[in-house]
């Protein structure tokens, strides 16, 4: 991947085209539904940036997207596709909550690191299972992570309905499936009073820089990328491919687990239903849109955070279901993965022209 100025500019143009393409196709579905796409997109894009609420909410959403996205960058760069972030978020959240609620008297300086460590470990173990299955038994990681998502969700629901349910919910007889609040002295501080934006944002940004340093400036990171570029060549060069596959998935799961911790400590202050909120999938989109670069994932997370907030606003303002955002994200993925072809084949446009004008084109297409 060329890192020169021209190359970066070209990549940004391709990404913008991919987003615009996805939005145009999405507009077709809105038209089919007899909705006005201009009005709908107007709300979706202006809403998140029009006031303090919109901007801070965008950043609140960007935090878990960035953390999940960083894990995706690590795993995809190592040649292993993690779509288990949904489950890893839940594993991290419930691990963090369990530690926080069982040690409420510990001072924040001890409890907060412990809670982060617990979340990262739970997420990391959950991701590591898929890595181990891939490395030792060549189990396709996409399938195993999908299954692990479903399993994590059921365990999570079982825990917040039963063993970890808020004792108040039991004594009041309301029975809402959620855990007790974590002790208030470890709630992440608010960056702007009166909003939900919390110090998890700074944590996520620091981690993005760390991941960049790890992947590009350390020998472990170099080996992981070598495994991703070509496992056979990496093996030939003496790299323990299996070990790095497990490590990559454990780190990816750990990042997603931290996203769960931050949602608990920064936003909800407990574990409850719907905590992962699709961040496991949106984080993949953000990472792909950031060209699988830790620093590129930062603006991409803000963009998709804004789109998530905008989609909610669109649902309220013009009554278009927020499911629309999943359609757009799916299309963005399809467009972005297709666009690699255009980046690698600059003559593709010329070939299409040649075909359209009936000349014998060089390449596939048959007789």
């Amino acid at each position: 991947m060329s890192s020169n100025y021209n190359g970066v500019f070209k990549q940004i143009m391709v990404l913008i085209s991919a987003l615009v393409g996805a939005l145009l196709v999405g507009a077709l579905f809105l038209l089919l539904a007899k909705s006005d796409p201009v009005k709908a997109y107007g709300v979706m894009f202006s809403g998140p940036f029009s006031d303090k609420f919109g901007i801070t909410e965008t950043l609140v959403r960007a935090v878990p997207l960035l953390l999940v996205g960083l894990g995706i960058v690590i795993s995809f760069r190592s040649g292993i596709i993690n779509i288990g972030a949904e489950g890893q978020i839940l594993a991290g959240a419930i691990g963090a909550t369990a530690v926080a609620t069982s040690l409420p008297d510990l001072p924040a300086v001890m409890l907060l690191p412990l809670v982060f460590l617990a979340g990262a470990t739970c997420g990391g173990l959950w991701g590591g299972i898929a890595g181990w299955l891939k490395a030792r038994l060549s189990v396709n990681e996409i399938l195993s992570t999908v299954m692990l998502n479903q399993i994590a969700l059921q365990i999570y629901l079982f825990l917040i309905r039963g063993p970890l349910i808020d004792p108040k919910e039991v004594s009041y007889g309301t029975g809402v499936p959620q855990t007790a609040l974590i002790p208030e002295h470890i709630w992440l501080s608010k960056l702007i009073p009166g909003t939900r934006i919390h110090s998890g944002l700074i944590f996520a940004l620091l981690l993005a820089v760390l991941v960049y340093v790890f992947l590009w400036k350390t020998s472990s990171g170099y080996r992981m990328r070598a495994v991703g570029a070509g496992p056979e060549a990496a093996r030939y060069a003496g790299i323990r491919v299996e070990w790095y596959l497990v490590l990559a998935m454990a780190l990816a799961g750990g990042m997603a687990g931290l996203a769960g911790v931050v949602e608990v400590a920064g936003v909800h202050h407990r574990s409850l239903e719907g905590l992962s909120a699709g961040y496991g999938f949106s984080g993949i989109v953000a990472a792909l849109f950031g060209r699988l670069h830790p620093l590129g994932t930062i603006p991409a997370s803000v963009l998709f955070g804004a789109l998530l907030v905008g989609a909610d606003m669109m649902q309220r303002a013009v009554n278009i279901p927020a499911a629309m955002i999943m359609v757009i994200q799916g299309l963005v993925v399809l467009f972005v993965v297709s666009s690699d072809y255009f980046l690698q084949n600059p003559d593709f446009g010329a070939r299409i022209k040649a075909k359209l004008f009936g000349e014998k084109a060089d390449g596939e297409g048959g007789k």
Partner: protein
Amino acid sequence: MDGVMSADIIVIILATGIRLATPFLLAALGEMFVQRSGVYNLGVEGIMMMGAFAGFYATLQLGTPLLGIAISLAIGALMGLIMAVVSVTFKAEQGISGIGLYMFGWGLSGLLFRLYVGGVTSIDGLKPIAIPLLSNIPIIGPVLFNHNGLVYTAFLLVPLSGLILYKTSWGLNVRAVGNKPEAADTLGVSVVRIRYECLILGGMLAALAGAFLTIGQANMYADNITAGRGFIAIALVYFGRWSPWGILLGSLLFSMADSFQSMVQVLGINFPYELAVILPYLVTIIALAISYGRVWAPAALGKPFQRGTRG
């Protein structure tokens, strides 16, 4: 105990198991052709969701499940075509494009359901067709010969897929394209065309699997009605070692276990609910783990075809 496990209950478990195998069979046989031609389609779940919604909505509007099936097949072909353009023509990384297709189908089916239907609405689905004479045989009759048309279709597709794959020239081309695309290309077989055909066929069968869930089983549509079955179907292709009979075996093992498990629930035998829900996913991981050893996989699986530069 013999009161609980009477012959009637065994018949119900077996008959339900046969019925529950249908979506796995349809989706997995489609994916088998796709992977035999050298492509992964990991978007099966998304196509199933679209097929489930399209079949449901067309049946609701047009009043006949047969039109529902036809429309869902068309939608499935379209979804397969999208995957083909992205994965074959644009040579995208197939794992990631599959996730894109999954998210697209998931979002779109949810969006259309909320826009056009909104709440729980039931439809007149497919009715069981009792095969004359055969359905009167004790035990075997109710287990095998009193199902709706899609169930019979799915099971007939097993030998039919075998015939197509091993005894027709098209099947030979599919296998050649999946194993040695360069050689097939040299012999004048269009790799691109075969892969397009397989992805479209796979898309149609995945959508049909989805339509079975709404038209042939639940008689309604609900969010996430597919519940990961599309991904499980892909796992069954591995477990069945890319052969129709292997897929049949895997689908039946899976659906019979599922049927047995739900009967345990119905009979109120003490078995934790969460564990029962987790079981199929756990079994899938185990099935993948014991399918260890990839010698059976098509050699060019997952590799976009790039014709060598000519001199």
